């Protein structure tokens, strides 16, 4: 005769068994005195356990009204929604700022040649423009990172006078350079641009030495800020400038009667930096460049004394080209290679006119 296991009797007393199990156990208990004794012992143990645990109850208190629980739940839900709204608001604000920053980066003045502000003064017929990508900030940074590169390569035909853009620039590049793959598209643009700018025959290029301050060389003369047309009329020929860049200021110092004056054309790059193209008698240009001062701008220089943005700073480089008794120079915060390419291009433009 099989007796009932102890755990089954616990489950039986706890009503944890099915109805059929209960009937089976009850029928056995009716016949088995031993199992009845065990059952009674388990029932006593169960009752004693319940009594012991009953002593451990907390002091009885009247439970709070359920309405209080409901209000608390509503308050927590409201707080959760408020936090969610706050998080969403913060996220949308961040997204808006990021979008604005991206838009300003892509469409603003720093965009790589996408939007070029019109020149402040421009009365000339349309001319082939210098691709703005050459001077845009990312490319400029690439230029600064790239190693110095010789520009004394074989002459390349000048680009046809088509609309500005990268296509004619890329088409004019040498096949080897044009097929050069990334990693740096900006570097590629720089190299192709240099290839395009190698248009002038070999001329004497002379980097200007570090400027010195406190020179006792007198540079007399009156500088006049003039309009583009006025300056061009006085010069009698097109002013030296880089096509495609907005002209910020034109200043002229009148020379002797019938002598071409000394001219300084300031133009702004898309990065905000200013480059100056200087053209005039070789002596005057040399004196002007010799008088520039890095930390203490010479008030005799045009535009320096009355506009802080016109000062030469320590990052400015200068490249000059002797053309008989005249001199052409470009100064600005660009690598020497870029300035050299620009002045070659500028010389070619002026020779063709």
């Amino acid at each position, binding site marked *: 005769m099989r007796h009932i296991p102890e755990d089954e009797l616990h489950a039986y007393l706890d009503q944890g068994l099915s109805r059929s199990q209960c009937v089976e156990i009850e029928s056995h208990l009716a016949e088995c005195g031993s199992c009845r004794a065990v059952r009674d012992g388990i029932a006593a143990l169960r009752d*004693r356990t319940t009594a*012991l645990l009953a002593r*451990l109850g*907390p*002091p009885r208190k009247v439970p709070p009204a359920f309405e209080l629980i409901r209000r608390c739940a509503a308050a927590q839900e409201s707080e959760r929604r408020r936090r969610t709204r706050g998080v969403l608001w913060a996220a949308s604000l961040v997204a808006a700022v990021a979008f604005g920053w991206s838009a300003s980066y892509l469409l603003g003045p720093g965009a790589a040649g996408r939007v070029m502000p019109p020149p402040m003064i421009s009365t000339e017929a349309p001319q082939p423009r210098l691709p703005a990508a050459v001077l845009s900030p990312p490319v400029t940074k690439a230029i600064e990172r790239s190693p110095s590169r010789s520009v004394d390569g074989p002459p390349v035909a000048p680009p046809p006078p088509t609309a500005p853009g990268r296509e004619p620039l890329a088409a004019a590049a040498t096949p080897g350079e044009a097929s050069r793959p990334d990693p740096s598209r900006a570097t590629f643009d720089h190299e192709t641009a240099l290839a395009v700018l190698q248009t002038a025959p070999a001329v004497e290029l002379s980097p200007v030495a570090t400027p010195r301050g406190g020179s006792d060389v007198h540079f007399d003369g009156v500088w006049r800020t003039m309009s583009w047309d006025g300056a061009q009329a006085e010069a009698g020929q097109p002013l030296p400038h880089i096509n495609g860049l907005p002209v910020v200021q034109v200043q002229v110092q009148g020379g002797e009667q019938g002598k071409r004056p000394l001219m300084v054309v300031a133009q702004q790059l898309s990065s905000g930096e200013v480059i100056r193209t200087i053209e005039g008698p070789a002596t005057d240009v040399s004196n002007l460049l010799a008088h520039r001062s890095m930390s203490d701008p010479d008030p005799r220089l045009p535009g320096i004394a009355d506009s802080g943005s016109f000062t030469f700073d320590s990052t400015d480089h200068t490249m000059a080209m002797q053309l008989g008794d005249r001199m052409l120079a470009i100064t600005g915060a660009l690598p020497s290679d870029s300035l050299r390419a620009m002045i070659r291009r500028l010389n070619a433009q002026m020779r063709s006119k």
Partner: protein
Amino acid sequence: MTDELEQLYATTYTAIVRFLYRKVWDAERAEDLAQEVFVRALAHRPEKPRAWLFAVAANLARDEARAAVRRRRHLTLLKGDPIAQPRVSPSAEDLVEHDEQVTAVQAALGTLTPRDREILLLWDAGLSYPEIAAQTGLAVGAVGTTLARARRRLVEAHDRQNTQMGNHAAHS
């Protein structure tokens, strides 16, 4: 659902408080946790609210116990004493209200394994075998076995406690 919860609140709140009190040994805290259980139930709308209430109560009590252990360790470190054994110290109010037998039962309950104690307290709170099995992960058939062991050990431990107390009283 809200009406069902309201009815359940009326019938189960005291059991939940008692269940929690036997775990945190702080009447005020047990009531706070019990109310938190019902607040969560209103937010979650469980399908089986009764079992869900005890499951959440067990989780809250477990978190509370962990926090209490951290607090005790922190205080122990601050005092520079060696790490004390996890021992529930009743509040001053409890000391007044509880007699030696209650302390003995509390100590006896502390001798059980966590699983045995959990199942015993769930059963005492009124949960059925299937509900206990669903909450603890045990098979339904194993609940009776575990309960049998837990009851026997609790009573044996309580008897030992009474014996030790009697001997201590006789010596003093």
